[in-house]
């Protein structure tokens, strides 16, 4: 027997996401688009009902999220208690979500309950009654959660960051304040609901083990609802804000939250793939430059990471960490140094190989199973993109060269553009 060679890594194969399954599109008779992702081994399905009903649509703070949270607080045929009872009885995992650009509900359930679940979803989405008493009660609870969040240092730092980067007026940047919890009325909820939650603006993504009958059942429940044309709104992009340093003192804090970043290019930009790769090198995985330096070398923090996020009208990049407050300035200095290094020294082949393969492995995970597939589909579809977005990203990961990394770091990581936010003890 050949003695075991433990010094050398076993032979590796090139990782590749391969062929990404194409999503099937079906249009219900009232024009609602349904995307079907049939995969998986268990008798389960997930439905995402997505509307143009995000924060960007709201005239006053909290309106979109309140409408969304109130959907299941009583409908034409069910009280809030009855809805909760039913959802729990069928073992469904129900979530409502409000994002910057979109809002909706998602529900995961055993296939055998399909009809009941769709009946409940239709009630929740299209026939909420927004009882005054439930609104008051919800706002009281949310106000209390708000006060709690105001005690969380990382949360304060995010708030300051978005306000600094997107401005205090635009829905992408504005902060919620305590008095906003008194500003929403039942009438406003109803108007917003009529405007934003109607079939003409609805998209359904179905993922899981999909049987043929699902489509006709969907048609029964959602295909006959009258679709009123919604007037296309004109959205304004957030204004360009000047970079600045913001410091906020939080009494009793034992760590400082640091957020550094700025607006950047979005998903539709041809340089976006390259920027994602650059971001991964900087702070996008456990072996990143920032992790190695600030956690593994210096022990200033439990974790540090960076990310790039795209909205419909703008995008931003952010570096985020909680550090022992005595290390605050040193940590900021090291973060800026790491950026400068990327602008001046090409990454070596070993590091490039690791990042390439790590990212390709991530892409395999992004298409593993029905729910991951659905999430990846949505992440491209929202921007009017399709699988080609992922094929292009794969190609870029495989072919990008170190000089391009330098070029991208110089173009998109200009130190003077960065907003630096620190929230910590005095």
């Amino acid at each position, binding site marked *: 027997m050949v003695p*075991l060679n*433990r*010094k050398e*890594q*076993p032979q*590796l*194969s090139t*990782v590749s996401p391969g062929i990404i399954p194409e999503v099937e599109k079906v249009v219900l008779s009232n024009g609602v688009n349904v995307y079907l992702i049939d*995969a*998986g*081994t*268990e*008798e*389960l399905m997930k439905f995402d009902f997505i509307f143009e009903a995000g924060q960007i649509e709201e005239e006053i703070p909290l309106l979109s999220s309140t409408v969304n949270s109130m959907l299941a607080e009583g409908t034409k045929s069910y009280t*809030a208690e009855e809805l*909760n*009872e039913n*959802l*729990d*009885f*069928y*073992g469904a*995992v129900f979530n409502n979500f409000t994002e910057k650009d979109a809002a909706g509900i998602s529900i*995961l*359930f*055993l296939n055998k309950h399909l009809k009941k679940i769709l009946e409940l979803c239709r009630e929740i989405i299209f026939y909420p009654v927004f009882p005054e008493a439930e609104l008051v*009660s919800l706002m*009281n*609870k949310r106000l*209390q*959660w708000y*006060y*709690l969040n105001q*005690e969380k240092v990382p949360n304060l730092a995010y708030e300051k960051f978005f306000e600094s980067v997107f401005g205090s007026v635009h829905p992408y940047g504005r902060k919620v304040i305590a008095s906003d919890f008194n500003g929403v009325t039942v009438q406003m909820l109803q108007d917003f609901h009529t405007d934003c939650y109607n079939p003409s603006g609805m998209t359904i993504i179905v993922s899981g083990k999909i049987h043929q009958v699902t489509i006709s059942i969907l048609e029964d429940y959602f295909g006959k609802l009258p679709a009123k044309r919604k007037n296309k709104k004109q959205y304004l992009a957030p204004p360009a804000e000047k970079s600045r340093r913001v410091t906020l003192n939080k009494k009793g804090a*034992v*760590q400082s939250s640091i957020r550094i970043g700025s607006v950047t290019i979005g998903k539709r930009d041809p340089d976006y793939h390259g920027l994602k790769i650059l971001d991964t090198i900087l702070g996008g*995985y*456990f072996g990143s430059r920032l992790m190695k330096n600030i956690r*593994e070398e*210096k*022990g*200033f*923090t*439990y974790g540090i990471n960076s990310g790039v996020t795209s909205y419909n009208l703008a995008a931003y990049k952010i570096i985020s960490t*909680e*550090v*022992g407050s005595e290390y605050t300035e040193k940590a900021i200095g090291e973060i800026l140094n790491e950026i400068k290094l990327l602008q001046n020294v090409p990454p070596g082949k070993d590091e490039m*190989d*690791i*990042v390439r*393969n*790590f990212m390709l*492995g*991530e892409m*395999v*995970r992004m298409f*593993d*199973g*029905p*729910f991951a597939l659905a999430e990846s589909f949505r992440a491209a579809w929202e921007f009017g993109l399709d699988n080609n977005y992922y094929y292009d990203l794969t190609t870029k990961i495989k072919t990008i060269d170190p000089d391009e990394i330098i070029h991208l770091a110089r173009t998109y990581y200009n130190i003077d553009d960065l907003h630096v936010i620190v929230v910590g003890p005095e």
Partner: protein
Amino acid sequence: MTEFRRFQLDNGLKILIHEDSSTPLVAMNLLYMVGSRNEDPDHTGLAHLFEHLMFGGSENIPEFDSPLQLAGGENNAYTNNDLTDYYITIPAENIETAFWLESDRMLGLDLSEKSLEVQKRVVTEEFKQRYLNQPYGDSMLILRPLAYKVHPYRWPTIGMDIKHIEEVSLTEVGNFYNKWYSPDNAILAITGNIKTGEAMKLAEKWFGNIPATKRVQPVFTSEPIQTEARVAEVRRDVPSDLIYKAWHVGKRTDRDFYPLDLMTDVLAGGESGRLYTSLVRDKKLFSDINTYLTGDIDPGLMVVYGKLMNGVDIEHAEKEIMNLLDELLSSAISTYEMEKVKNKFEANSVMANTNIMNKATHLSLFEMIGDAGLINKEIEAYRNVTPGEVISAAQKYLVNSNCSTLYYKSIK
């Protein structure tokens, strides 16, 4: 059904393999049967600190993460009172790298002063981030020693005191490794796109020649039966009051576990749970209320905790919780309510099966508590619970003298 095969190597390593060809990935879960309960009361937090050191390089491999990333893999780890768990997902074609890495750090670690010093600092920052720098973060640091006086569950995994972490020496760390990190104290689960034969061949190749370390299995001093109610009160700069109530219950492997678990769902499983419906929705006393079982290997706790709405008197709120619990003890649970909580369990367990990493973790955990086959038997165990058993379990444990209460009050 999660079909799996069970093997054991000559050195004692237990191996569980489940094939799932619907994924391009393989998951590897390596569980070591050592957690914070195995620590010396004067040196707590060592098991968790050690988990950090496992990433600092091993006998033949200078760094753990880079080769894994190079193979397209991803990994992490966690420590709790009973165990330390390391897990990887990796594209199937590169699975051998996972065997190579995990086996080498079982064979021998490259422990250095430098990496110990850095990881002490990282863990100190973790301690601050999780326990000190957020409202109510220190609750478990108060509740555990209130409920447990003797058993090692009286300290949390991060440690009783951050000083314990600062004082650990390289020798202690080395001894800890030698004592606990060996094949006869570990369970390896492999799930995903790999054939059983291939997985076994690789396991034998990479783990087969690692020597066993015979150890005397520890016997923990059992917690004496609590005979009178315990109360602690703290005042902190938090926005509202919080109440915790914890009762001693049995072990994860006790028959009582299933009825008790269903009881927590009757009380707080989803928004239709009794506590939520009555105390959050109807009476508006709490902004949030929940209950759970710790599910530990040694006798654990059932915990109820709720955040109060401002202006609500904490004793009044507590009385309302107790009224609901009394109601549970004295009146029957309807067939409908039983059906509801069982359905929920069934749905959750099917959902957990969609993920190979979940399956690998569950197989190892069940094997540690006696039988990986529980992964397929639990739905039935829950289905068989009668309403009478839920009430008996409640009557047995939900006794005032068995309860520890923490009033976490706002100074505002």
